[in-house]
C-alpha cells in the first residue's frame, strides 16, 4: 500500500548568532492513510521542528532539506498559493496552546466556517450548519449558541475542542497534533485524547501525535517514533515498543517516570546529565554521555538506524536493551563502575 505521507531524510538547520544548529538531522518515516504515529521526545529533541518542517511553517532562519511526499507530490515544493489550497482539505494542524491558535477578536463560528467557505465554497447558512455539527462532534454542549462566543468565553478544554473542530472542518487526510493536551488538566487531557482517537477513526485520517509523554502515545497510536537530539533513535509498532523496548534512551526514559503503580518514595532511576548542545556535537552516539551501557565504540562511531528483530522495529544503538550485546555492555560497565561516557551503570535494566 502506498503511504499517505512519505517523509524522506529531513534535515533542518537554524542559523543563529552562535553558529548553525541542526535541529533535525536526517529523519525519515512513512504514514499510511487512517493510521496514527506518535512522535515522542523531550525539549530540544526536534519533534516540533520536524513537523513544522513538514508543514513548511518555519521562518527564514531555517533551512530545510529533504522530501515530504503526500499522495506522490512533494509538498515542500508547493507555491504559497498552492499551499493555501493544500492546508485545510489535505493537511491540518492542532497546536499546544489553543488560546494562541484562535483569533481573540473572531467569533468561534467565524473561525470554523471561514475555511469551509474558502475551500469547500459553502454558503453562509450551509457552513454554519456544518459548524454546529462539528462542534457537536467534538463534544461542545449547546453548539448553536456557542457559535457567537469569543474564545475568551470558553475554558481551555473547550477552546482545544474548537481548534480540533477547525482542523477537521475540511475533512483533512492528515492531522498533525503538536502536544495537543500539554496545556490541559489530566481529566481534560483524557477527554481530548479519546476524542482525537475517535475522530481519527471516524474520518479515517492519518494522524501524527507529538508529545513528550510516553503515557499519551500508549494505547492511542499504531506506532511510535522516539527522537533524541534531532535524530530518530527508535521506531516500532506501539505495543512492540512497550513490550520489548530496545534503545537505551527509550528504556531509560521509561524508567525515569514516576509510575502510579509504584509505592510511594520509590527511588527514581533518573537519567544523568542533559541532552547534548547541538552546536558542538561530539562524534559517536548522541546519547552515549548519559547512557549506562555505553562502550568505547559508542563514543567514536555513530550507530545507524537499522531494523531489529522485525523489519518495522528500527533502533539506533550498538548495544540494545534485552540483547546479549546489551547485557554484556551493561555488566562490563557495572564491573568497571562506570560507562564509557562516564554515566553510572544503572542497577535496574536488563529485562
Amino acid at each position, binding site marked *: 500500500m502506498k503511504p499517505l505521507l512519505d517523509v524522506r531524510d529531513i534535515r533542518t538547520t537554524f542559523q543563529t548568532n552562535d553558529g548553525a544548529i541542526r535541529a533535525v538531522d536526517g529523519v525519515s518515516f512513512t504514514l499510511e492513510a487512517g493510521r496514527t504515529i506518535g512522535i515522542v521526545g523531550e525539549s530540544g529533541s526536534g519533534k516540533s521542528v520536524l513537523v513544522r518542517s513538514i508543514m513548511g511553517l518555519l521562518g527564514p532562519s531555517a533551512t530545510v532539506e529533504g522530501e515530504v511526499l503526500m499522495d506522490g507530490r512533494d509538498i515542500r515544493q508547493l507555491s504559497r498559493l498552492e499551499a493555501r489550497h493544500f492546508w485545510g482539505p489535505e493537511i491540518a494542524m492542532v497546536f499546544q496552546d489553543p488560546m494562541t491558535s484562535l483569533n481573540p477578536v473572531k467569533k468561534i463560528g467565524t473561525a470554523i466556517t471561514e475555511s469551509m467557505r474558502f475551500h469547500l465554497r459553502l454558503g453562509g447558512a450551509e457552513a454554519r450548519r456544518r459548524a454546529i455539527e462539528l462542534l457537536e462532534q467534538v463534544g461542545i454542549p449547546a453548539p448553536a449558541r456557542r457559535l457567537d462566543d469569543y474564545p475568551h468565553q470558553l*475554558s481551555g478544554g473547550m477552546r482545544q475542542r474548537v481548534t480540533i473542530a477547525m482542523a477537521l472542518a475540511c475533512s483533512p487526510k492528515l492531522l498533525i497534533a503538536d502536544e495537543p493536551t500539554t496545556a490541559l488538566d489530566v481529566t481534560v487531557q483524557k477527554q481530548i485524547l479519546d476524542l482525537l482517537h475517535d475522530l481519527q477513526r471516524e474520518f479515517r485520517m492519518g494522524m501524527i501525535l507529538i508529545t*513528550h509523554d510516553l503515557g499519551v502515545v500508549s*494505547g492511542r497510536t499504531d506506532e511510535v517514533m522516539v527522537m533524541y537530539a534531532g535524530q530518530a533513535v527508535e521506531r516500532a509498532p506501539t505495543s512492540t515498543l512497550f513490550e520489548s523496548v530496545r534503545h537505551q534512551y527509550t528504556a531509560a*526514559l521509561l524508567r525515569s517516570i*514516576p509510575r502510579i503503580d509504584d509505592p510511594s518514595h520509590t527511588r527514581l*532511576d*533518573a537519567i544523568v546529565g542533559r541532552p547534548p548542545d547541538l552546536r558542538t556535537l561530539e562524534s559517536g552516539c548522541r546519547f552515549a554521555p548519559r547512557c549506562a551501557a555505553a562502550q568505547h565504540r559508542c563514543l567514536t562511531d555513530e550507530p545507524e538506524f537499522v531494523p531489529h528483530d522485525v523489519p518495522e522495529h528500527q533502533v539506533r544503538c550498538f548495544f540494545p536493551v534485552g540483547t546479549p550485546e546489551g547485557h554484556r555492555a551493561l555488566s562490563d560497565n557495572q564491573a568497571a563502575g562506570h560507562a564509557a561516557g562516564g554515566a553510572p551503570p544503572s542497577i535496574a535494566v536488563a529485562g
Partner: protein
Amino acid sequence: MAGTGTAHLRDIDDLVLRVDDLVVEFATPDRQVVQAVSGVSFDIREGETLGIVGESGCGKSTVGRAVVRLIQPTSGTVVLDGVDLGRLSSEKLRRARTQMQMIFQDPISSLNPRRKVRDIVAEGISIWGAGPDDGTDPEARLDELIAAVGLDPEATRHRRPHQFSGGQCQRVCIARALALRPKLLICDEPVSALDVSVQAQILNLLADLKQAYRLTMLFIAHDLAVVKNISDRVLVMYLGKICEVAGADDLYALPAHPYTRVLLASIPTPGAQSPVDDVQIRGELPSPLDPPSGCRFRTRCPNATGVCAEVEPQLVEIRPGHVVACHHPVLEPA
C-alpha cells in the same frame, strides 16, 4: 466534594504546620466573589511531606501562598511551629517567613537574571545572618549548599541564571530555599516545567535533601504520580475544598472519593493498568464565583444523588488516617 471538617487533624506534639479552616476569597472588579479556598484544614508533622493534588482552579497554589501570606487569607488560622502567623506584626512576620521557604514552577523566572548564583543563594544569609548554631564560615556554608543540590560550587558560584538549564536553575532555587534552614519547604509545581528525565533528578534530590536536612514539605502539584512518589500523605482538592486525605499508598490503593478515582483513571501510564477502572467525568468545572450547593463535585459526579445537592459532606474517617468528604464514598477495594 466537599467538605469541610477537621476529622483528619491530629493532636500530636511535633506539628510543624497546622492550618485551620482556611478561607481565601478574591473580589472581582464587578463585585462578585471568587471562592478560591473554602474551609481547608490540614497539618504537617516534622519530617513529613504532605502532597496537595488537584486540577487547575482547585485552589492548591492559593493554599500554599496563603500559608506564607503572599496572599492574605480571608479567614482561618495558620500556625507554624506553635506561632499563629495571622497575629504577628509585619516585622515579626518577616522574621517568621525565614522559617518557610518556597520553590516555584518556573525556576528561570524566579531567579534574578542579573545576579550571580552565589549572591542569589547568599541573600537570605546576608540579611539574617547564618544563624546562632552555625559557627562555620559563610562561604563554606554556601559551597556546601550548592554542592548539596548537585552543582559544582567552583564552576557555579560566579555564573548567572541564563548560563544554566531549567533543571540546574531549579537546583539553585532549592539551594536558596535551604540557605536559612527553614522548618517548612513549600514546593509549588516544582517539576512540572521540567523534562521527564530532569524531573526524576529533582525528585530524587528533594528526597535526599529531606533525609539530610530533616525537611518538612508541602508539595503542591497536579501530577498524581509525582505527588505519590514524593509524599507521605496526600490531600486531594476540588474547587476550593478537600475531597480526601490519606497516606500516599493508601490513597492510590483504595481511593474512596469519586473525584480521586476520576483523577487516577485519567493518568496516561505507558503500558500499565490504571488502579481504577475507567470512570467518566461529565461537564465542565463549575465557576468558583457560584460553586454548586452541597457537595461541590456533585454536578460532575457519577454517584451523585439528591442529598449531595442539599447537604455538604463533612470529612469522615473511613479507616485509620484516611478521611473522605463524600456521601457515597467507594469503600470496596478497587
